[in-house]
């Protein structure tokens, strides 16, 4: 279930955007290609940091652990001659892979549908600007920003069987993180749930940098303070989670 939702989400969202742009193409015909791409990709990127990415992570972390909770198979997994580290790490890296895969699909579908649009509606000049490298960098930054949240949500879903607790905690933290980040609190970079929002700053730079210039330079600063904190938290919580699993009794 987790796997298919990781595939369907990017597909459906990009498709929706494609249809939207297709229908409204007359309004957009004279927009310069780069702006066109930024509008197209930006529609999703905008919501990504705010809500989409944290929710995606909460859901993936939940579904990966829920298979075992639902089927009551934790006890069988831990009674097999497999080290507890292997079980824990395998599940974690599957969730890790799913998030990566989902974001990669967003890149692919955005590029794919954008180019499809320019083929179907020659007035939309998507094909005159290649946003692939910028998009990839942006999404990668989002990915790095998400790792802190992933570790925390994974641990919560491991410890709590129901959906509400990890979801509730994750949701409240997401809102808090968004508020802290958008209000430019000095220490927002230390709170993992602010990181996607802060990754969006890179996009803001991109958007503002291009206003007015004909061939503007857009760079994405990959390893900012918040990215480092996200990675650090990811590693710390992963290790802490392992020790908790080790000590805990399996119900």
């Amino acid at each position, binding site marked *: 279930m987790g796997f298919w939702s990781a595939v369907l989400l990017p597909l459906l969202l990009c498709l929706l955007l494609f249809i939207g742009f297709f229908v409204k193409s007359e309004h957009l015909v004279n927009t310069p290609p780069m702006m066109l791409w930024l509008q197209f990709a930006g529609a999703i990127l905008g919501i990504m940091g705010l809500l989409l990415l944290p929710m995606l992570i909460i859901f993936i972390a939940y579904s990966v652990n829920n*298979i075992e909770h*639902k*089927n*009551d*198979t934790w006890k*069988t997994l831990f*009674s097999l*001659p*497999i080290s507890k580290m292997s079980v824990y790490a395998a599940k974690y890296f599957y969730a890790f892979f799913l998030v990566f895969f989902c974001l990669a699909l967003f890149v692919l579908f955005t590029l794919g549908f954008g180019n499809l649009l320019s083929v179907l509606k020659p007035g939309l000049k998507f094909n005159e600007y290649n946003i692939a490298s910028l998009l990839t960098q942006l999404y990668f930054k989002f990915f790095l920003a998400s790792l802190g949240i992933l570790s925390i949500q994974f641990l919560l879903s491991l410890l709590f069987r129901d959906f509400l607790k990890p979801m509730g905690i994750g949701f409240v933290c997401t809102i808090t993180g968004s508020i802290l980040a958008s209000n430019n609190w000095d220490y927002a970079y230390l709170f993992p749930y602010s990181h996607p929002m802060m990754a969006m700053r890179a996009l803001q730079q991109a958007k503002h940098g291009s206003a007015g210039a004909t061939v503007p330079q857009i760079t994405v600063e990959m390893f900012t303070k918040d990215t480092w904190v996200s990675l650090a938290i990811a590693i710390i919580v992963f290790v802490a989670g392992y020790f908790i699993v080790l000590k805990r009794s*399996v119900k």
Partner: protein
Amino acid sequence: MVISTKDLTFTFGNQTVVKSLSLQVPEGSIYGFLGPNGAGKTTTIKLLLNLLKTQEGSIHIFDQELQSNRISILSQIGSLIEQPAIYLHLSGRENLLNRALLLQIPESRVEEMLKLVHLTDAAYKKAGQYSLGMKQRLGIALALLSDPKLLILDEPTNGLDPNGIIEVRELLIRLVTEHKKTVFISSHLLAEIERMATHVGIINHGELLFQGSIKDLEALSQPLVQIETDRTVDAANFLNKNNITVADVNDHHLYVPYTSKENMGEINTLLNQNGYTIYSINKQQKDLEKLFLAITQNA
């Protein structure tokens, strides 16, 4: 001893669920672990599988200490705890293949196991659609997949019809006699345990009230000779006069404490020679159920 625990104690919060349990499970035995609900059976099994951390006491399996040799011990154990834990969204066959992949067991073994538990026909159906009995059989197949030396089964005949129960019983007996495995089985079905166990451990409120071979248990129960005759009361009085104590008399039978086969024969001869017609005479075991109730209620 395949399983040997010493003074095993486990507490959940304030409640001591297992108290100073010293199990001795011999190799090649079918050890029946009996107890009422809440006695501590499943907790003991979880301790044996290292699903719960040992708090007090020690556990040795295959003469190795459990905590320090976890993986090598677990690789030789097959277990079934409570309801079989199977992935409902996968088919029966896929469940077995998944386990085989995890444990690096060849695929051919999966087919063997399906045949053994008679699930070959339903192998491709989603496990979520299986009946309770089929799920139970799949659970047993999963436990046997790695060809373990020790089988720990928590109520494996739960939900099986009489045919299923007999099949499991015969399978377990075969595994022990032909394949030299050891089976540790917890159950409520006293009649079943009586028919297949070689050793028995009775637990209540976390304490082991009895442990020993099934013969020892039977000896504990003071067997009786049950005699059906044409004149029951007269026969009873006659026996009393001849210094044979009569344990009980009712409308249909009279009961004399059993000492030996020869003695039973002598009583038969005595009554026959004195004109009493014996319709039936046999040794009656106090059945395991009454014995079990007696042991658990007296504790």
